[in-house]
C-alpha cells in the first residue's frame, strides 16, 4: 500500500468515525499481513495534516487520538445551523414584566400579591438574561427583598426614551372599552387578544 492510499484510508476513517481514533485503532483496520506500523501511520497522519492546510478542516491530536475537526474560524457561522426557533413568552412572563415596568421598583412579593400566584424564578431569570430587568435595590423590610426595575435595554427594545413614554394607564381604559366592543365584532385582529383573557388563571409553569 502506498502512502497516498494509506492517507486516504485514514481520512475516510476519521470522517466516517466522527470521533478521535488512536494510531492503534487506525492500524486495526488492517489485516496483520498488511498492517502499517505505527511509524507509517504517523507519517500518513502528518501528510494528511499538511493536506488539510487551506481546507476547512484540520487534523488535531487530542487525548484519545486523532480527530479531523472543522476549523474554529467557522464556528460562529456554523452555529446558526443549530439555532433554536424562538418560542413565545408566556402570559405569566409578560404580566411580570408589565408589573415591573409600571410599578418599579417592585419586589417579587408585591408581584405575587397582584398576580395571585408565585413568581416562577425562571421568569425573573429569563427577563434578567434578556437584559430587560435588574435588581435596583432592596426594600427596607425584614428579609430585604430585592427591588426589581427595568433597564435601558428595555427602553431601547420598545423604542422608548424614558419610562414616561410608557403608554399611560389611561390608554388602558380606552383599550378596555374598545376591547369589549371588538370582542363582539369578532374581527380576526382581536381574536388573539380576546382569547388571552380566559387564560388568566394559567400557572407560571411556562415562561
Amino acid at each position, binding site marked *: 500500500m502506498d502512502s497516498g492510499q494509506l492517507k486516504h484510508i485514514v481520512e475516510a476513517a476519521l*470522517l*466516517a468515525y*466522527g470521533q478521535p481514533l488512536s494510531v492503534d485503532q487506525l492500524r486495526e483496520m488492517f489485516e496483520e499481513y498488511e498492517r502499517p506500523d505505527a511509524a507509517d501511520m504517523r507519517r500518513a497522519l502528518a501528510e494528511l495534516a499538511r493536506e488539510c492546510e487551506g481546507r476547512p478542516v484540520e487534523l488535531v491530536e487530542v487525548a484519545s487520538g486523532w*480527530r*479531523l*475537526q*472543522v476549523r*474554529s474560524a*467557522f*464556528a*460562529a457561522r456554523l*452555529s*446558526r445551523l*443549530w*439555532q*433554536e*426557533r*424562538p*418560542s*413565545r413568552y*408566556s*402570559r405569566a412572563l*409578560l*404580566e411580570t414584566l*408589565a*408589573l415591573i415596568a*409600571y410599578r418599579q421598583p417592585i419586589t417579587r412579593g408585591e408581584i405575587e400579591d*397582584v*398576580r*395571585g400566584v408565585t413568581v416562577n424564578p425562571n421568569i425573573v431569570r429569563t427577563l434578567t438574561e434578556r437584559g430587560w430587568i435588574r435588581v435596583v435595590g432592596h426594600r427596607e423590610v425584614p428579609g430585604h427583598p430585592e427591588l426589581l426595575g427595568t433597564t435601558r435595554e428595555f427602553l431601547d427594545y*420598545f*423604542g*422608548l*426614551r424614558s419610562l414616561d*413614554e*410608557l*403608554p*399611560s*394607564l*389611561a*390608554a*388602558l381604559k*380606552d*383599550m378596555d372599552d*374598545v*376591547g369589549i*366592543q*371588538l370582542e363582539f365584532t369578532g*374581527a*380576526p*385582529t*382581536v*381574536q*388573539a*387578544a380576546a*382569547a*388571552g*383573557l380566559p*387564560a*388568566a388563571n394559567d400557572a407560571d409553569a411556562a415562561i
Partner: protein
Amino acid sequence: MNDIADSATITDADAPIPPPPQQGEMPFAIVDGEPVTEVPRDLYIPPQALEVFLEAFEGPLDLLLYLIRRQNLDVLDIPIADITRQYMEYIQLMQELDLELAGEYLLMAAMLAEIKSRMLLPRSGEAGQEEEDPRAELVRRLQEYERFKQAAEDIDRLARLDRDLHQAHAELTHRQVVRILPEVALQEMLVAFKDVVQRASMFARLHVRRETLSVRQRMSDVLAQLEGEGLVEFVRLFRPEEGRMGVTVTFAALLELLREGLIDIAQAEPYQPLYARRAARDPDAPQIEDVEITTA
C-alpha cells in the same frame, strides 16, 4: 422460455420425479456441513434442518415460487398437478414433524386442490365464451409476489448508509448556542398589564383620566400616514417625542381604527414585527389570513 414446451409440461403433470435441482441453486440449509438444496424424500430429516427450510420461505407463495423456479418453469403456465403434489409433500413433512405450520400454508393447499379439480373439468368449447384459466388468480398472485420479492432484493442492494456509505462528520468545537429570542410588542405588554390589573381588582384604585389630545384627530393622522406609505411598521406609528400622552392617544386611535375596520394589523408570523395598513376598501376582498395580535 418456450411457451409450447411449457404447456406440454401439463401433459406429464403426473411424472413422479421432478427434474433435478438447477445448477447454481443456492443451498438453503447446511446440515453437518453438507449443503442441502432439496428436501430429501426417503431419508430421516432432522427437525432442525426442516425448520431451517421453513424459515427460508416467506410463506406459501414463496414456497410455490421456489418449486416452480427450481424446475425452470414459467409462472404463466404452471403444471398445476405436479406443483400441487410437490407442495403437498412439503406440507405433509411439516405436519409429520409437528412443526408449527402457519395457516396460510394450508389455505394455499386448499387453493391448489381447487384449481387442480377445476383443471380436470373439460372446457366447454360450444358455449363460445372464454372461460378464465383456473390458474389465473394464482398466477397473478405469484407474479405480484415475485415482483416485490425482487424489489426487496433490489432495495437490499442499494448502497446504504452504515453498510456501504458513511456520513462524513467532523467535530465542530467552540460551537455556540444561537437562540433567537421571542419578540414582544409593547402592546402585548400593555394587554398583559391590563389583564393583571383587572384581575387584581385594582382598576378602581387607578387614577384614570381623559386625555386632552383628540383620539379622532390622531385617527385621521394615522390613516393619512398609511395612505401615503402603504405598509407601516407598527412601532413607527408612535412618535416618542410627543411623550407619554401622544403615545397613548396614538394607541387608542389605532384600536379605534381597528374596531371600525379601517386598518389591518398584520404580522407575517409570531414574533415578527407588527405592521399596519389601510384595510382593503372592497369588503369582499380577501383578508390577510394570519392577521393576529399575539398577547401571550
